[in-house]
């Protein structure tokens, strides 16, 4: 049973923060082609740290697992070894791995620069909403012409 941790716990340690930033950069690097920052960008990473909330426990668990696989801080490894550790970690799956991925993605894909790069407006849905085209209702004509499909019941 997945449960929300209700106890308060201290925030991430400096070494955990460094590893989390390292994971963020590995997951979503900056792109010149798409003119977007990486997930380790100062603004985005600050949002990630500020948004850990109820995911803190799972994220800490994931970072601990990564550190164990790395034999130390992930951020201290060379690029090739980091990739190997990350691949092994992702293969294990589980709630903590999913939470680690989610806390990065949910902040990255709400950053104004990133949202604009996708051709979207950086705003909440309310109050402007969106426009939805009616579409061609004549598509329904062959369905209208069908005989009754439901069964009478005795």
């Amino acid at each position, binding site marked *: *049973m*997945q*449960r*929300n941790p*209700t106890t308060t716990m201290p925030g991430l340690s400096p070494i955990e923060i460094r590893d989390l930033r390292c994971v963020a950069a*590995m*997951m*979503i*690097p900056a*792109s010149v*082609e*798409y003119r*977007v920052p990486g997930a380790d960008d100062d603004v985005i990473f600050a949002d990630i740290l500020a*948004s850990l*909330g*109820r*995911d803190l426990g799972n994220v800490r668990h994931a970072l601990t697992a990564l550190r164990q696989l790395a034999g130390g801080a992930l951020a201290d490894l060379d690029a090739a070894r980091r*990739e190997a550790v*990350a691949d092994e970690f*992702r293969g294990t799956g589980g709630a903590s791995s*999913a939470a680690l*991925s*989610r806390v990065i*993605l*949910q*902040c*990255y*894909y*709400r950053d104004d620069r990133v*949202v604009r790069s*996708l051709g*979207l407006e950086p*705003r*909440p*849905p*309310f*109050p*402007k*909403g*969106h*426009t*939805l*085209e009616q*579409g*061609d*209702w004549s*598509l*329904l004509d*062959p*369905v*209208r012409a*069908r*005989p*009754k*499909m*439901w*069964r*009478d*019941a*005795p």
Partner: protein
Amino acid sequence: MNEMVDVLIIGSGASGAAVAWSLADTRMKILCLEQGDWMKQLDYPSNRRDWEARVFGDFATSPNIRARPTDYPINDDNSPIKVVNFNGVGGSTIMYTGHYPRLHPSDFRVRSLDGVADDWPIDYPTLEPYFAENDRMTGVSGLAGDPAGPPRQPPMPPLPLGKSGARFAQAMNKLGWHWWPSDTALATTEYEGRAPCINLGHCTPACTQGAKASTDITYWPAAIRAGVELRTRCRVREIVTNERGMASGVIYYGTEGIEQFQPAEIVILACNGVGTPRLLLNSKSTHFPDGLANSSGLVGKNLMFHPYAQVYGYVEEPLDSNRAPPLCLWSKEFYETDSARGFVRGYTFQFGRGVGPVTEAITSADSGRLPWGSGHHRAFRRLVGRRIGLSAICEDLPEAHNRVTLDPVLKDGHGIPAPKVDYTVGENTQRMMDHGIARAKEILTKAGATDICVNSPILYGGWHLLGTARMGTDPERSVVNEWGRCHDVKNLFIVDGSVFVTSGGVNPTSTIQALALYIANSIKQRLATLFD
């Protein structure tokens, strides 16, 4: 001690609101106890930039993840489908999507027509006027003329087809299969003071616009104007009975957590198919050692969910994505029994539109479609805004081993034993899901989709909580009679999805509310002899 009331309703969701409103014209003193709060529309996710992230937090559909003080935990470890709900004024209508089909006439005669499960003690024509009344109170949008169901007249026009709907419609026409714009509980025009839908696109975790018909903005304002009292943050622990075996009231914990007794002449349960058996099983006494109203042993048994088989894929052109209600069309092509399919009964296809960028990224990362590193951006741009999907809502047959009991350890914030769910997908249902997945793949392929993915059953898909206090004329084989009164306790009624005999293959809220109105009317018609 609190003042005696004539009618005490427990729960303010889909059914509790409807029964409260209907009974209000009797001028009886009516009180509803709700464990949650009144909700504020501007607090809803779609009013904030973190709108998508909040469905993983304070607007998660699972009470175990959401874990608000107003929620109670549910041990659903032994179920491949997790219970989802919401606790607050409006109940789970706060967090439903508003797909609003009715049960079919054949759904009330399952034994007679198909030789499985049991017939209901009532039929579709009995409920028909209550369906219509509920459509008016709720404000339903849709289109008359659907050949797949009995005639109905939704008071508002349907949601637009949009790009996604048109693409599905073309695919279904190529296949020669039925489709129709869904009946929805979303206002497509101004309706009884409600603003019309402006395509916030994030309907399930509550509608900031107020276009979605949650009962806090439909039935409740009318019920309160008519004199019903609604008391929030009141969590009922147990129903108390007297020496005559009648319900005398309830014990509940109020705002400050103080235990109180509320006496009542009539008690009505409207707590859904998990909350209602939980409360009955927590109401043991000398008279009722196995739980209240449980002489049949059926309280909590025959839990039905509607397993959802979700299938989706990706097309080349950007579609409606999250910029429109996820509701779109339905298909009843595979609803009525056809023995050639290898199963009895059937399912509805519910066609969706798409998801927002955060949801796309998270689900695609979880399923391995979205890589880490330099390939991430290119891969994501081939996915975002291009998803198109549908779900088969499969009829679940009643099976006694699928049940709600009390967890021996787990308790809520007031120390009340929590419910435990044991559930497995039945063989007939599994064959139905497999059929639905195969047909959905055909539809998506015809719609031009590739990279087709299957999510079955949807893990957090236990929206529909049915069957755990079934209706019937035989007290040995049912918990309530044909008008909702408990066989064992003549002033105790149940009006929520617990009373369903079978589940049908459609979202049940419309039928739950029609049943609540029907039971309310049955009470009104029998007031002089109600306890005979």
